[in-house]
């Protein structure tokens, strides 16, 4: 095990890690997650996108319109400023990218494992935070809202689709989220590949 941790990455795998680092930079430029909403009066749908540092509508006006719809049920307004996580998320991503480049200098399998742990941690903490955030928006409703449906909460799904009153909300990773997921897959592949290489070396 110890030998695997300090095994130097193959040239191919080093390139792969470099690729992961570079591709992760894209996550600054594209949304990570997207929630889409459709309703009879919105046949074209409304969309909301979560980026590493902000929340936007799928079109320049969608977020405003989502908030307008939400005001009937007393949901607080969704604005990037009210989500402090978005302030430090860019640094977390920077840390991941930094890790990839450090690995180029110190190309050991252990670094790849560290990367896997980091990505898993970011993923798990991120998703649970996202869930908590959805829960708060969906449950902390203004008791003076124009529309109050007994026992109704409006928490969007973490993953997949859900019907709430006349609205169907779907929540899926966006391109940025896919990149994060694929990065994890790439690192796991590297680990598997290095492990296989170690065994074949031994033999």
């Amino acid at each position, binding site marked *: 095990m110890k030998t695997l941790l300090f095994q130097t990455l193959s040239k191919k795998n080093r390139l792969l890690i470099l690729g992961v680092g570079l591709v992760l930079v894209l996550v600054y430029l594209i949304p990570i997650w997207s929630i889409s909403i459709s309703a009879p009066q919105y046949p074209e749908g409304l969309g909301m996108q979560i980026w590493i540092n902000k929340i936007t509508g799928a079109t*320049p*006006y969608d977020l405003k*319109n989502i908030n307008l719809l939400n005001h009937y049920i007393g949901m607080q307004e969704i604005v990037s400023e009210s989500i402090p996580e978005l302030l430090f998320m860019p640094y977390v991503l920077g840390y991941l990218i930094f890790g990839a480049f450090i690995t180029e200098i110190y190309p050991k399998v252990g670094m790849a494992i560290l990367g896997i742990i980091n990505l898993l941690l970011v993923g798990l903490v991120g998703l649970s935070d996202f869930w908590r955030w959805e829960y708060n928006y969906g449950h902390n409703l203004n008791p003076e809202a124009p529309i109050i449906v007994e026992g109704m909460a409006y928490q969007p799904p973490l993953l997949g689709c859900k019907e709430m009153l006349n609205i169907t909300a779907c929540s899926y990773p966006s391109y940025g989220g896919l990149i994060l997921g694929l990065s994890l897959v790439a690192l796991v592949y590297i680990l598997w590949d290095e492990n296989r290489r170690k065994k074949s070396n031994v033999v």
Partner: protein
Amino acid sequence: MLKKSNLILVTLGITLMAFVPNCKKGAATATLASDAASRVYVAPGEKDEVYAFLSGGFSGQMSVYGIPSARLFKIIPVFSVFPENGYGFDEETKEMLKTTHGYVPWDDSHHVESSMTDGKQDGRWMFLNANNTPRLARIDLKSFETKEILEIPNTAGNHASPFATENTEYLMAATRFSVPVPQASVPIDSFSKGGFKGTVTMVKVDKNTGRLSIELQVLVPGFNYDLSHCGKKKSHDWCFFSSYNSEQAHKMLEVGASKKDKDFILAFNWVRAKECKDQGKAYNFGGEYVNNFHDENKPAVSTKLSGVKMLNPKDCPGMMYYMPTPKSPHGTDVDSTGEYIVGGGKLASVIPVHSFSKMMEVKDKKEHHSTEIEGIPVLKYESTLAGEVQKPCLGPLHTEFDGKGYAYTSCFVSSEVVKWKLGTWEVVQHLPAYYSVGHLSIVGGSSSEPYGKYLIAMNKITKDRYLPVGMELPQSAQLYDISSGKAELLSDFPTVGEPHYSQMIPAKLLMDKTAKLYPLEENKHPYATKNENEAKIVRLGSTVHIYMTAIRSHFKPDIIEARTGETLYFHVTNLEQDYDIPHGFAIGGAPNMTNLLIMPGETRTFKWVAPKPGVYPFYCTDFCSALHQEMQQYIRVSP
């Protein structure tokens, strides 16, 4: 004398009837194709293939229909006030209806013209004429709103208008009623002594902004200039105007203007006219007119202008020629290739077709001139004639082209559409119309690239076609499929006002370009309120400005205090940025003002003078949301 003329007409009619047995046969071919219903059926959720823009005749508006379903989508107010959305009433648009005669909130709108690039419809603007109080309007096809109205001076009855040149360089506008130019109180019988004049106006269209301006007027003999169409391709430099009453009769025109065997189509080289103007051959002439412009999210601005450049034909040789055309021509239409100029003689027994190339060949050869009228050479009829469609029908009026070598002519008297072949001049089909068809229109049929699938005939009378609704029946349009060898009647539909003429555009050219909202951040209205926190009431003496916002489902501020006699301006900004969510605004009992319909991101102003003390409700008139009924509040007026 009078009786004799009538007799001649009647005889002519009977003779023609005898010569046109096809008319009867036409009625027999009217049997509806059994699947016609399915061909006009647009299933729920599906879209029509074509936009049809129909002028509203005496309604002064323009309406938008979907083809083939014939569903009415919208009425675009142009020259008449429109209580539905406050057009012509509110502070933003009332200037649009200003003229030198003051506020004229109605007109008679006949011809729709679409903007073109290289002779093809480009889907940027529609233009509409006002016949009664001479004006031209530009309608933007992004917002489907009237953006500009230009008054035409030194003219009366702006009928031969607004016909565009191939790249919409200019719109033509010619006199229907010749009058003393400049206006003066002269004996009416001086008409027959040449005391009345007509003008042809070249209205320049800015190619980027669409802004209209008068480039030049040409003073022409005092006939009635009726219709126009401009050339294409080789005839690019030319526009053709039909004229009647070359007799210059001034009473009982029915007879007096029908005496001569031939009136004229005026061929006008607008490129040459501009050249003469640039050479300084035009002179300064008077004439007051206004230009009204409604920029996005700003109040319309009405500008008074005076004076035009006027040109006399004799000072600009080569600019104008008269082509004799049988019996009071009405339509003058240029085919898609630009070669054939088809006349529609209201009283003619043939459809005369002039050849552009022949005209070019003979126009400056003296032996082909028969005479000259006020500096305009009159060419010999045979010299420019390409051919005549013999005994097509009674009362041929307008012709459009399918781009496949066929022309379709509407015939008022025999109430039918006649299909004939260009070049051989033979009639191939008679299609009955119900009843008394005026203009007809093919999708893109007046451009150089017809889409050639649908034709609509626009009828004046609909006796027996629909459920009777009192003395006045709706007017109607009839839809034909002309895509295959034999044209077929698909449906007919009642219309708003008189569907005088139309332009039809393939939907794919327009539907994706339509504006969905006015971006709030671009709202430059001086009284815009872009945020609820900025809503306020500002008092300036006895004038009160209310900076109000509207969003689902409330106004802010919502409680207003005023004193009797104060003037209140409700500047309402619709804060929505969502497609199809206008808000309305109306005050109970408000005189002189109807309603506001405020598009998303737009600001509109409702002027109200506080009446006697009391509490007055105001509310949103456009059903905007589940709580629309709650979108209401009060104004308290104290002594």
